[in-house]
């Protein structure tokens, strides 16, 4: 394979992930350009979350290599920020919003060290970036779903990463949070950060993302949205389920010059 190009924020080669002997993701190879807002789309069970988890080594990959700016993932871990799915944790945990955001600093702190005053100030700043400064002392179970999601985003911001992985940050959030998130994503993009977002609302894909990765147990297509988000690729990604999304696809056919689907 050779060494990946040092300018590429993320390059993965031939990743295969298997749960219980059955591969859920086969031979995915990808080169992600810098400073893009990337949507990872595909049907339920396509392996979207699995892909971003396996890139970060959170689920073991059966094979494959991941390099970050030309170096192996393990050496570059500090460049990565992660927003897991909101449901993945118990929100009744005894802690407040600021404390959760501080967890984003733990990676930089390393073993044994406690967060300093500066870490706390930075965490507060991250909270205000997502419009949650007033809630820093709020017990996390008393936050609404959207607010919890924003706390998770603030925690990822606190990591001061170059590359962000976000697992369905738009799932089940209110309109205000959705706006806040997309604003934040665009800010990150403006700072030349690379953001990969697992997303499943096809309606908003062209509006939110300038680059997309389409997967369904294998890589279907990856590239700038206007080139890749075609009815042809959607057909390949969603297979028989395409009828469901027929009208959404038709909406997008104006921009991608492909024939409308029935």
């Amino acid at each position: 394979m050779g060494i990946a190009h040092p300018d590429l924020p993320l390059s993965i080669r031939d990743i295969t992930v298997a749960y219980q002997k059955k591969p859920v993701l086969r031979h995915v190879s990808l080169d992600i350009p810098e400073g893009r807002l990337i949507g990872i789309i595909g049907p339920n069970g396509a392996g979207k979350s699995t892909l971003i988890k396996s890139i970060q080594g959170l689920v073991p990959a059966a094979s494959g290599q991941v390099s970050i700016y030309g170096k192996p993932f393990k050496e570059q871990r500090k460049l990565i920020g992660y927003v897991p799915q909101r449901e993945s944790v118990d929100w009744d945990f005894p802690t407040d919003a600021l404390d959760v955001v501080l967890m984003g600093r733990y990676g930089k702190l390393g073993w044994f060290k406690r967060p300093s005053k500066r870490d706390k100030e930075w965490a507060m700043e991250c909270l205000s970036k997502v419009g949650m400064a007033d809630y820093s002392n709020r017990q996390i179970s008393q936050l609404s779903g959207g607010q919890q999601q924003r706390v998770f985003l603030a925690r990822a911001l606190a990591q001061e990463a170059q590359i962000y992985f976000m697992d369905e940050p738009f799932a089940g959030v209110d309109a205000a949070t959705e706006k806040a998130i997309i604003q934040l994503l665009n800010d990150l993009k403006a700072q030349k950060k690379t953001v990969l977002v697992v997303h499943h609302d096809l309606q908003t894909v062209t509006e939110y993302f300038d680059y997309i990765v389409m997967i369904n147990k294998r890589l279907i297509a990856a590239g700038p949205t206007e080139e890749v988000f075609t009815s042809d690729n959607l057909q390949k990604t969603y297979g028989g389920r395409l009828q469901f999304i027929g009208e959404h696809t038709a909406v997008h056919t104006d921009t991608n010059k492909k024939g409308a689907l029935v």
Partner: protein
Amino acid sequence: MNWLQVLQDPNTQWVLAGCILLGISSGVLGSFAFLRGRSLMGDALAHAALPGVCLVFLLTGSKSIGFFLVGAAISGLLATYCITMITKHSRIKEDTALALNLSVFFGIGIVLLTYIQHSDSGNQSGLDKFLFGQAASLVGSDVNTMIAVSSVLLIITALLFKEFKLLSFDQGFGKGLGFPMGFLDGLLMVMLLMSVVIGLQAVGVVLMAAMLITPAVTARYWTNKLSTMVILSGLFGALSGAFGTLLSTQIQNLPTGPIIVLGSTTLFLFSLLFSPKRGILFRFLRFMQVRKKVLHQDILRSLYDVMEDSKKENSIPASFFSVERLAIKSGKQAQTVEKALRTLLKKGWVTQDKEDPQKWGFNQKGLHVAHSLVLNQRLWDLFQMHEQNFHGYTIDQSEEEIIPQLNGVQLEMMLKELEHHNMTPTLVAIQSYKIANHTPDQGGVTA
């Protein structure tokens, strides 16, 4: 014996020290087990320790805690390994795997224990105390071991507090940060096991789980902060340890271990009922309060609504309305409505018709209160129906009132929209509603 004499007895001092230490370390580690959803793991580990202890005794003939620690650690680890493997490689879930292992290991332990008791090594007496524990049998060397072990446990917990917090809250994120979560999980398990082992002699296999979990659950009732919870849990453990020891020295034939457990359960029950934030009593009171408040608001709004209707329909609108009419409007029983009206009367918000006391109406103050309620309600309705029109408004929908969250321009805009949708409350002139000062002036129109 009086208390002073009891405390001067070196034997009691050892037991007291041992039980307090045990309470602290099991309380602290139990907090993490509880938060990780591993409450039963402590129980499984305690039961699994029994065969290890028996085997060590069979092999060495020694009854020192140090040796027992090793044996219990080995069989506890084996049980943990079995539980993990069963969960990982079969479709059996963790609770079932726990139950399977707990009983099998305990069964083996009892078999070995019976064998030891019927053998003639002569030194076996006291080993059966591991079932229910016997704190009085603690001697200086045992307590020294307990001091050493619990100090190590507490120091590690203090050092790795942040890492354990991460492990308990969000393992996936921690792994992403590069912390070896598998190792930390294993370490926590071993530490849990060690705190179980030092408690076996005092509290016994069967009751050990209570030492781990009860103080932790109790502490959770009093705080929303992990560090405070861990400290409180240790404190509660220590308190129950001291309580159990002292009570059993005062009264003949009281077993120390079970009294410790009963002590910590008493603390738990007290917290369950009376903790200000999560306790049943205060939650119930708060619930009743909210119910009452909602009822009163409903009645005020219904009265306002029927008044508004009457103003629309009649040239000479009525000012007073029957309980029945309000009951129909609010969808509540007449009895409930009447009771609420009487309370509102006492508050000075509603009045009875002088000619027909069965009929009710607002006084000036009540009308303004009702007006604010109705306006708030309708603004919320408007906001929720047309949320897209109001993007850029930072509105926290969990708050009760919307008006304080709006700036002047936004409020004006929303009031215009209300007008547009014909939803403006009409019984008090809108102009009188000052933004800066939320109490309307007295110039309102009454029906």
